[in-house]
């Protein structure tokens, strides 16, 4: 009797975790993994979604994309936008974190500044886009101040001239994203044991030597994992670019996400858009594998 009860209990214990996980797995399976398979399927069909009985297209849509100069331009813009964003997010985040962590400022000021420095992070991409459009309007405050200071001679159309548009959206994204690094590095800085610095002081180390030989090596794991995540997420940015420039002028700010979106919902070429979406997925998956391996190795 008792033994039977116990084995019943053990069975329950074995099944229970799967029951607890089942709603999540069902949702992730049906609404994430299945759609991923579906989009791969679409990319091999003619008139996917639009027709009930689409015919097999082979690699046609992939060929079309790889022969499209706009695709390669988008890839290049994405790379530029992402690399510049990650590098500057890291640099600004590091500088702000080190400044806030200095024992030369008083604690109240530090707390106030920490709250204010995080501000850009609290705003939605759409709102960030609108704010920067207002700031960088040809008649806006940035132009007016730069002209007063004699840095530019005439009004610059930051978002609507092909020479400046990509730099302008990248700048807006740099402004919007550094707090993630700042917050994580600040937490990391507080975790470095004080004796490291005391030992260095005894040896007569200079400030920059402590930075290079203690602080940065200690923060390296945070720097690498946040950079990877930031890279993956920045690569997928859509609303900021969609609202500031829409990918223009003349494709000068077209990135992979806006390129794919336009293929799908402006030209209704859902098959080709699927092929492009699969390419983005593969790049993301590659980086994700790298990220997971790094996390496990840690």
């Amino acid at each position: 009797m008792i033994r039977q009860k116990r084995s019943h209990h053990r069975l329950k214990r074995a099944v229970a975790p799967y029951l607890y996980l089942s709603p999540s797995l069902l949702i992730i399976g049906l609404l994430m993994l299945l759609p991923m398979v579906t989009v791969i399927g679409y990319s091999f069909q003619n008139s996917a979604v639009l027709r009930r009985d689409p015919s097999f297209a082979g690699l046609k849509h992939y060929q079309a994309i790889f022969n499209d100069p706009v695709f390669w331009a988008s890839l290049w813009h994405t790379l530029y936008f992402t690399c510049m964003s990650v590098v500057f997010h890291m640099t600004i985040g590091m500088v702000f974190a080190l400044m806030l962590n200095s024992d030369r400022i008083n604690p109240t000021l530090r707390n106030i500044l920490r709250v204010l420095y995080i501000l850009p992070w609290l705003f939605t991409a759409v709102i960030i886009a609108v704010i920067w459009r207002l700031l960088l309007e040809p008649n806006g405050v940035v132009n007016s101040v730069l002209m007063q200071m004699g840095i530019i001679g005439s009004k610059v159309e930051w978002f609507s001239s092909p020479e400046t548009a990509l730099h302008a959206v990248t700048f807006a994204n740099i402004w919007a994203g550094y707090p993630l690094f700042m917050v994580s590095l600040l937490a990391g800085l507080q975790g470095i044991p004080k004796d490291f610095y005391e030992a260095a002081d005894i040896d007569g180390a200079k400030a920059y030597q402590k930075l290079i030989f203690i602080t940065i090596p200690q923060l390296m794991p945070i720097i690498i994992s946040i950079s990877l995540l930031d890279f993956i997420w920045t690569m997928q940015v859509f609303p900021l670019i969609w609202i500031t420039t829409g990918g223009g002028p003349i494709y000068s700010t077209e990135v992979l996400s806006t390129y794919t979106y336009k293929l799908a919902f402006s030209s209704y070429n859902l098959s080709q858009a699927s092929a492009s979406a699969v390419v983005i997925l593969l790049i993301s998956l590659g980086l994700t594998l790298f990220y997971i391996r790094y996390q496990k190795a840690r």
Partner: protein
Amino acid sequence: MRKRHTPKDRLITVALHVALLAGLFFAAFPIYWMLSSSFKSNTEIFALPPTILPKAFTLEAYAAIVGDPVKLRFFFNSYFVAGAVTVLTVLIALLAAYGFSRFNFRGKGSLNTLIISTQTIPPITLLIPFFGLVVSYRIFDTYVALILTYLVFTLPYAILLMTGYLNTLPRDLDEAVAVDGGTSWTALWRVIVPISLPGIVATSVYTFLLCWNEFLFALTLTKSTSMRTVPIGIQLLMGQHAFEWNQMMAMSVLGSLPLLLIYLLAQRFFLAGMTAGSVK
């Protein structure tokens, strides 16, 4: 400890404060400009030279938004969808997190890796199959379409956050229930949930923010003005009256209020969620 009074040392302290001030200007000026423009008239926004403080302080932009039922509807939609998704996500994630945190089972490691890697799936990749699904199930332009699709993106984060939180709670608490003959289900609701409130709050805050900020799916899976959320509303405002900058700024301020309030009132929970992805 540190020699404080050499002239060189004082110079460094002064330089640091100047740099802090420059940093503050970089971080906060764009936001200040949004706020101050929302209280200006449209002509004043482009006055030359620009006015730092509104010269003629006016609430006309806010009145135009609060007085327009179409725009109020954007806010209702955003709150409703984000609220519904938050409740669903937290419930489902709590169950999964309990499974991950309190049981050992076959496949645990790979399921955990699966959930971590779903965080990085590009939304644009799922957009096209979602569009196909939503159209074929005839839920295009409905709340259901938004709620279901948001759920997929919020769930992985919520599971990781909740699991992390539950792992910090001692196991003896729920094992005591098992000793008394209670099931794991009883232990969850009687013991775990009441002491997990901080974790639940942090997860809810983060889930709410993810939904509040979502743009791509709201743009594609809804069509009628009455179904649009705040981010799309701001974009529509930009398209319709390209020069009503004060209204756009007022709407941006109103659209940022939930995030600002949560941040100021519950900074701890907010940061717990925002940095969760990177800690895991």
